[in-house]
């Protein structure tokens, strides 16, 4: 015999054809897999609709960058690189694995086109792919099994540790790599022993090493090994395929879909029900997510896709301060429930009220909607819309904490969460010194091209009114012809919609929209990123909206605004990115550009900045909510700024300012640190 017998021609004990096994394994494997997938798809079919077939261009881009390009992975360097190696290896080896299945019926089968140089090139890469995947698996297993990075820990209240599953799967992958390489090495070693034919092999690859090790093995051993490793590979391959949908490795299958269907627009909130317009909302039986099947199919797919990597919770400010929320477990608990309610065989169970069954009310109210989790997730899993949908359900059931009921009622009655009188909304402009120098137009009576949308906190909070005055001075200096809505302005409702009070938000939106359209302004400016976000992303058909930092940056570029040299050059400034300016709207550079236009101003960067900015504690209604927590987000943030060597924290959001000012006091850093609003710093430096 000059060549080894392949699995298609081999007979066990000389009589039992191996090809039967080669046939049975895929039939059982694929059949079982199809059955499992059908059961897994069942809850998606029963789920609520979701519109994810729009903006195909952006979706393809996400597929290329986030899925194929894995661009979010290196944000966690070691784990990210290991994942990229395994992911790339899987892509390369999937071709080999599939053709190996056919080799079971047809010895020496090659995919069309793989007979020539293409096949040689492919083999070269796939040999290294298998090698690197094995190395990555070993490092990953050591990391998970021995070093145990903290973010994988499962707190007791969330169930059992997931390390065993992770290491088990790394073991299966390693088995696939080793068996595939041994299968090939045994054949090549056999051939070399009998014919002296030497194939070029990628040096130091697994096949290369195994072939070297097998060079003196007997033909019988090589033949046995060849057949044995083939079936080990075949079995491991189909076992793995059917094991994937059982847990966190489902992402191997679902990730491509999940990334394609992921959020493509930022800063917005999903409609109460896709396909139901705002004016038909009254006809809906129920609002929001109360039971499992109230989630949309994409949100269910999110649950399936979570790889349990823990990055969301590692970035979550609520989790960091010990609030009862960890986004990772929002997903894992829902996935466990799907697996329980939709078992692989037998009856499908009914879901009970989720906030009583798997979630708690405080857990759902703990989210500030800062978006750090979504920004991080390598699989494009969403949280904000789920939180909002769960809150919509709670509001509909009357499950709203007393601390939030008061401001919500005040918003309903007075259009602001403080319950202050409408006619006092423009009182900030009546401050003596300011009034002596500046007249603010009321667009109910006067005309202007620009509306300055002040929003509630800046209108009514004694301290924050300063932002309104400084913003007005900046606009005036920059030559912007502007006015305000005065008592016609209502709260923008950014947090009203995000806290699930959809109909109240709709009312506020309608009142504001009508008042704004009545003025005929050509643009809207605001200094409140929450108002900016609501007007820009939640409202529709308004004139373009700008944040004051954008106006300032632009006017500096055109030379219409000039800034003096820094008045406190010995201070060290740091810019804190407000979530609703940065992460939700991508405005990172304009405020920095404006700060850097002040000559002699020393500015440092926080380690967590731009799209990794750490929420200061949340705005709008979040100021009223009384969470269970060990410390305040603001305190952690102030400490981060101190570590960065800064003594002035500049932010561009009234809520950030309130939270950070409070946090400086709580952290005992009064006198050492101060917080400034962007408008204050700029106004002080106006020529």
């Amino acid at each position, binding site marked *: 015999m000059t060549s080894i017998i392949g699995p298609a021609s081999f007979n066990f004990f000389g009589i039992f054809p191996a090809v039967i096994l080669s046939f049975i394994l895929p039939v059982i494997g694929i059949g079982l897999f199809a059955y499992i997938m059908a059961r897994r798809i069942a809850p998606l079919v029963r789920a609520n609709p979701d519109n994810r077939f729009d903006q195909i261009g952006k979706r393809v881009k996400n597929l290329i960058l986030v899925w194929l390009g894995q661009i979010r992975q290196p944000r966690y360097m070691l784990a990210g690189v290991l994942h990229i190696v395994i992911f790339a290896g899987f892509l390369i080896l999937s071709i080999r694995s599939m053709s190996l299945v056919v080799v079971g019926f047809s010895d020496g089968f090659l995919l069309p086109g793989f007979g020539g140089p293409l096949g040689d090139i492919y083999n070269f890469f796939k040999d290294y792919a298998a090698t690197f995947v094995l190395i990555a698996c070993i490092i990953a297993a050591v990391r998970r099994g021995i070093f145990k990075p903290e973010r994988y820990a499962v707190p007791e209240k969330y169930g059992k540790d997931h390390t065993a599953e992770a290491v088990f799967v790394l073991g299966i992958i390693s088995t696939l790599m080793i068996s595939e390489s041994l299968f090939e090495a045994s054949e090549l070693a056999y051939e070399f022993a009998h014919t002296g034919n030497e194939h070029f092999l990628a040096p130091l690859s697994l096949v290369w090493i195994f072939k070297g090790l097998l060079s003196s093995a007997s033909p019988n051993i090589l033949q046995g090994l060849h057949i044995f490793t083939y079936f080990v590979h075949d079995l491991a391959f189909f076992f793995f395929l059917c094991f994937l949908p059982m847990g966190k490795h489902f992402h191997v299958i679902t990730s491509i879909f999940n990334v394609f269907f992921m959020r493509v627009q930022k800063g917005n909130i999903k409609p109460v029900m896709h396909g139901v317009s705002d004016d038909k*909302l*009254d006809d809906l039986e129920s*609002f929001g997510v109360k039971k499992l099947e109230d989630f949309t199919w994409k949100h269910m797919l999110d649950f399936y896709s979570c790889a349990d990597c823990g990055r969301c919770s590692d970035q979550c400010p609520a989790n960091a301060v010990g609030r009862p929320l960890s986004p990772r477990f929002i997903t894992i608990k829902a996935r466990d429930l799907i697996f329980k309610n939709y078992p692989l065989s037998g009856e499908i169970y009914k879901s009970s009220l989720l906030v009583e069954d798997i979630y708690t009310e405080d857990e759902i109210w703990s989210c500030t909607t800062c978006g750090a989790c979504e920004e991080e997730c390598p699989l494009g899993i969403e949280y904000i819309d789920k939180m909002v949908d769960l809150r919509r359900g709670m*509001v*509909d*059931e*009357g*499950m*709203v*904490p*007393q601390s*939030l*009921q*008061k401001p*919500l*009622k*005040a918003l*309903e*009655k*007075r259009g602001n969460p403080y*319950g*202050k*009188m409408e*006619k006092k909304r423009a009182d900030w402009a009546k401050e003596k010194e300011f009034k002596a120098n500046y007249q603010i137009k009321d667009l109910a009576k006067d005309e202007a091209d620009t509306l300055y949308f002040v929003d509630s906190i800046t209108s009514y909070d*004694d301290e924050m009114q300063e932002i309104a005055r400084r913003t007005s001075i900046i606009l005036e200096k920059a030559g912007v012809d502007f006015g305000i809505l005065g008592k016609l302005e209502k709260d923008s409702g950014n947090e009203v919609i995000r806290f699930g*009070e*959809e*109909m*109240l938000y709709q*009312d506020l939106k309608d009142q504001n929209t009508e008042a704004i359209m009545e003025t005929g302004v050509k643009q809207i400016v605001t200094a409140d990123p929450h108002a900016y976000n609501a007007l820009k992303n939640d409202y529709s058909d308004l004139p373009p909206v700008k944040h004051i930092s954008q106006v300032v940056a632009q006017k500096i570029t055109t030379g219409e605004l000039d800034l003096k040299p820094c008045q406190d050059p010995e201070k060290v400034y740091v810019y804190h990115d407000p979530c609703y300016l940065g992460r939700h709207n991508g405005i990172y550079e304009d405020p920095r550009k404006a700060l850097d236009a002040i000559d002699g101003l020393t500015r440092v960067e926080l380690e967590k900045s731009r799209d990794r900015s750490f929420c200061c504690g949340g705005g709008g209604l979040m100021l009223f909510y009384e969470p269970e927590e060990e410390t305040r987000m603001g305190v952690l943030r102030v400490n981060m700024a101190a570590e960065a060597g800064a003594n002035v924290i500049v932010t561009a959001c009234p809520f950030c300012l309130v939270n950070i000012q409070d946090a400086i006091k709580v952290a005992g850093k009064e006198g050492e640190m101060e917080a400034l609003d962007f408008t204050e710093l700029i106004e002080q430096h106006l020529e």
Partner: protein
Amino acid sequence: MEILVCVKRVPDTAENEFELNSAGNDLDRDDLVYSVNEWDNYAVEEAIQIVDKVGGNVTVITVGDDESEEVLRREMAMGANSGILLCDDAFEGSDGKGIAGILKAEVEKGSYDLIMSGAQADEGAGQVGGMLAAMLDYPYASLVNKIEVQDGKITVGREIEGGNQEMNEIQLPCVLSIQTGINEPRYVGIRGIRKVAKVDIPVNGADDLGIDTASVGAAGAKTKRVDYFVPDMGDGAEMLEGSTDEIIEKLIEKLKAKGGL
């Protein structure tokens, strides 16, 4: 269990800044916003929870003008099954006894096992519940902060001066006035109110109730408000004025000066 809860529409203390009117006999009511009397919300929530447990119906009732219908709808959005508005020009200006008399007439038309009211309302008199019980010859418990329902009777808890708690068995039918803190009233959203916007609410006047108009309203009132004012500042009282920061600073100074700090 058939439960009737008496509610009242009052100026909202959280969302108003109160000023006297020019005549000096009432609040300036032009810019006020109104809502359900806070105590009544707790009473309605408690009634709903009892009915959820043992079955029955919750009816909310108020004596007031057309606009009072709004508070009935809000309580129905919370979960009350039906509402009754007692409205008649003749009722205007009723004192506490007058209101209790009007309510009594409606109570006698139905068959309620339990009647609840808030412990007090905006005027702080806290009298209607007790008077209604007396007129009906029902037992009465005031300032109730706990209710346990058993067969045919209930046990009610009351907080006693000094933080002590007492529990009393009380025979049905009875009247209870409810203290805040007995529960956590559920949230009523705009959607909830819209859902009950079209539910029919019967309106009963003096004729429907068989009430002699001379016994109610301003005419029948045996107590009359003769004045309404902000008390003169007495000796030792002082109002600190200015912005929040200034007030705090002045307060600290004063505390320091008097040795309080």
